[in-house]
């Protein structure tokens, strides 16, 4: 696009503050929802798809006091999962005259274009992570087939929105979702990381404002702790590290216009017990300890700079996949009306 660095009318004498007011975009916490808290930088710049192979097993044994010869067998099955990758590109062109015009405003134009290009790509990676590049192909964490979808039920006073909901009951609601997620994955008692990703107006209210009201009976955090503190403390006592991450593109993205809040268990900790391990098969390696993945070819966009007539052309590019939940039990999509 263009650089708009106009001439300006100034009064002399005057002082121009050298530091600028730069538009700030929300630094989204969406990457927390992925295994390892970041992109999986593994693919090549030309790879069109990512495949993950999967192995399943069905077992049978016979048990008799004496030995018989007709025995059952185990069956091992292999299949694969896939997601598409997309090349995200953007272009910037400028000349030495543009650079001088920007310099009049104390702006280093090549650096400004570089960061602008990166921000465009990074914000699109966020879109791809949450909503998918092509939602109809089941891309994006929100579109995970088979994800658990929960609408916030009314509290005991009949309140249904974040602004009115009983703070203590909201903490119990979140703790129940954590409990259900861990139960689905047979990870009860296995210390793990849980990421709650949602809009600021939902989660910050849970962190700051929603102090658990006192009641005629004793309850966790009453009068002292907020909803989020109760969640973090109670879950933390059993080894679950709850992290809150913010992204306001989830506003209105839930069911019937409610705000969407993702409760994600990004890593699958393969639980095993010493000695007789009923999960022995899963100790075969290599095993992928990730539930949610977003692939990329580079950690940051590659820049290709080309001289053009009277200036430079800089394209930035990065190949990414959409957000991909390979084990759909790891995601709960909560719809919480504001």
């Amino acid at each position: 696009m263009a650089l708009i660095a106009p001439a300006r009318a100034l009064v002399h004498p005057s002082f121009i503050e050298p530091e600028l007011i730069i538009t700030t975009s929300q630094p989204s916490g969406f990457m927390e929802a992925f295994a390892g808290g970041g992109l999986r930088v593994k693919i090549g710049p030309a790879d069109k798809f990512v495949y993950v192979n999967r192995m399943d097993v069905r077992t049978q044994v016979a048990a008799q006091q004496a030995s018989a010869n007709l025995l059952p067998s185990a069956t091992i099955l292999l299949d694969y999962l896939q997601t598409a990758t997309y090349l995200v590109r953007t272009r910037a062109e400028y000349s030495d005259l543009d650079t001088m015009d920007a310099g009049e405003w104390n702006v280093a134009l090549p650096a400004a274009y570089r960061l602008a290009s990166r921000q465009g790509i990074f914000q699109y990676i966020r879109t791809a992570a949450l909503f998918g590049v092509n939602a109809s192909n089941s891309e994006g964490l929100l579109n995970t087939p088979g994800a658990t979808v929960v609408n916030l039920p009314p509290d005991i006073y009949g309140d249904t929105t974040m602004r009115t909901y009983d703070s203590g009951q909201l903490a119990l609601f979140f703790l129940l979702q954590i409990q259900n997620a861990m139960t689905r994955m047979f990870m009860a008692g296995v210390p793990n990381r849980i990421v709650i990703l949602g809009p600021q107006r939902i989660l910050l209210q849970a962190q700051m404002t929603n102090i658990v009201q006192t009641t005629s009976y004793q309850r966790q955090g009453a009068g002292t702790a907020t909803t989020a503190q109760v969640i973090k403390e109670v879950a933390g006592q059993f080894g679950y590290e709850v992290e809150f991450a913010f992204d306001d593109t989830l506003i209105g993205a839930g069911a019937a216009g409610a705000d969407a809040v993702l409760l994600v268990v990004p890593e699958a900790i393969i639980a095993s017990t010493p000695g007789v391990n009923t999960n022995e098969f899963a100790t075969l390696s290599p095993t992928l300890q990730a539930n949610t993945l977003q692939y990329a070819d580079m950690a940051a966009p590659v820049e290709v700079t080309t001289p053009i007539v009277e200036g430079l052309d800089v394209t930035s590019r990065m190949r990414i996949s959409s957000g991909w939940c390979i084990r759909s039990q790891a995601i709960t999509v909560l719809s919480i009306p504001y």
Partner: protein
Amino acid sequence: MATPVISFNPMQTTSTQTSFLLSSDGYVQGTFFDDPAIRYQLEGGVLSASATLPVWGGIPLSLAVPAINGTSGQPTALGSTVSIATTTAASQSGGIHAWSLFNQASAMIITPGSGVPVAGPGMSVNFARAGSGLRIALQLDAGLANSIVGGAPTQQVSWDFTNQAITTYSAGLGALPIIIESVSTTSRVVTYNSTTGAVTWNTQGPCAIVRI
């Protein structure tokens, strides 16, 4: 081949919804229990060029004796031509002569969103003939699992040629020439979507071990 027999949906993002199980106990439809005495009954054939449906493991097959070797090649090398059986009695056209199997069938194909290995027309199909004595896992009609338990291994059952599963005996369908050995309701069984052509696994389905 007019219409594709094997579903292919190249852009679909797929995920597993069943990678966490309480127990791995169960069977997999279309496989036989390893048996050093009769494993050599596993035979290879080729799916008829006129087949309009794919073949996966655990389906009754009708066999045709291959053409005589001649100057144009050796058709017998491919084995019997197989097609999906349409009736029970082996003496009738389309009757059951064999059962398709996944064992060693590593040339069968899976595609995105269609995770059950299948063979299309002209592809190799592994099977065991009825009477070979192998113990194979076949899909059961969901309502039948509990009623079979406790009954005689020789109890009469029929084959549902639409849903490709063992169903309640009816005189019209005829009795399957099998012996029922055991039943599981936590097995992997096959589901066919006739609209999309996708062949997928139901990972907690009913299955029986039968001796064919």
